[in-house]
């Protein structure tokens, strides 16, 4: 499975949700499908995309929050699983595109290429619903199912180590933040 194809499958389902991505390929590929004001690309501080997602999920419990993360970032902040598990916000879905590589900086193999299993770490950290899939149809159905369950969930999507042709995005970091924050503030509470 290619990450861009997996993103295409779920892209149409992201409209009513808040999306946080980590930096690099995930951000550039989601952006390439068409930027929307409910997308926030965390273009640094690797590992914290899921912490930002948790902060939003706890602040806005009626809005679905989707974190689109990578194996390299998650490996830098494994404690995030424990923290998310402790509060278990039902509106948080943490998707990890695992290409077993730090692709954006030259393709160095990460520890998931030598046996580390992020799904098992998530489960052992107390996340009740964690899955791993290599199949794009299964990924799509796991996504559709887990955004509506009463628990936080983790979906590890094993993808090829192939990135976008270009990483550039015509969107300033602060511009992205202001637009995203303004969008959240415009949403009506349920």
């Amino acid at each position, binding site marked *: 499975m290619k990450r861009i194809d997996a993103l295409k499958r779920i892209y149409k389902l992201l409209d009513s949700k808040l999306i946080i991505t980590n930096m690099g390929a995930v951000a550039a590929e989601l952006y390439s499908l068409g930027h929307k004001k409910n997308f926030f690309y965390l273009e640094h501080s690797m590992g914290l995309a899921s*912490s930002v997602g948790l902060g939003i999920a706890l*602040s*806005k419990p009626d809005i679905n929050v989707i974190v689109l993360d990578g194996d390299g970032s998650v490996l830098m902040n494994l404690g995030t699983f*424990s923290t998310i598990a402790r509060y278990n916000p039902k509106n948080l879905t943490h998707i990890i595109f695992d290409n077993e590589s730090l692709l954006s900086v030259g393709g160095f193999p990460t520890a998931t290429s030598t046996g580390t299993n992020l799904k098992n770490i998530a489960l052992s950290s107390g996340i009740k619903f964690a899955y791993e899939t290599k199949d794009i149809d299964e990924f799509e159905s796991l996504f559709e199912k887990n955004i509506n369950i009463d628990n936080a969930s983790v979906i590890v999507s094993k993808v090829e180590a192939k990135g976008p042709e270009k990483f550039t995005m015509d969107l300033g970091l602060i511009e992205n933040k202001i637009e995203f924050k303004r969008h959240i503030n415009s949403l009506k509470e349920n």
Partner: protein
Amino acid sequence: MAVSVKNSELIYKSLKKCGVKIVSALPETWLVHLIRFSEEDPDMQLVRLAKEEEGVGISAGAHFAGLKSAMLMQNHGFLASVNGIVSLAQLYRIPLLMIISYRGEMGETDPWQTEGGLRTESTLKALDIPYDIIDSSESVEKKINKAAVLSESSERPVALLITRDLMVE
């Protein structure tokens, strides 16, 4: 040694007056009452962290969602959070109200706190983080309010160092 309940209460009430709704924390001796107050308060969301840097992400998320937050940590937790502070909070202009217990300053008995204590203020200065030191109960409310106002208006991290004289009886 006992941690001052009275001054912890003063700090907590000052945070509440500033409209803080989310507090992230990692346990530290001097913060014990503050964390307990946060947990017992139905109007406060306490987020217990595995590592302090996660708190930068929590505060960023709260800021996006329009809520005010504060971070409770030891100065070693601040030192462990530097990349998140620089590459999230400063890069994206996120207000952080950091309440930091100032271990390793004058009067410290634990040898392991001393190196971090020595480098806390110089690190804050190197990172261009405005900070103030609270060492007496009289200035708690005023200093917390001023720090909260500056962090919101500048959309940047601001730190308050709470000292042994304030926290230990």
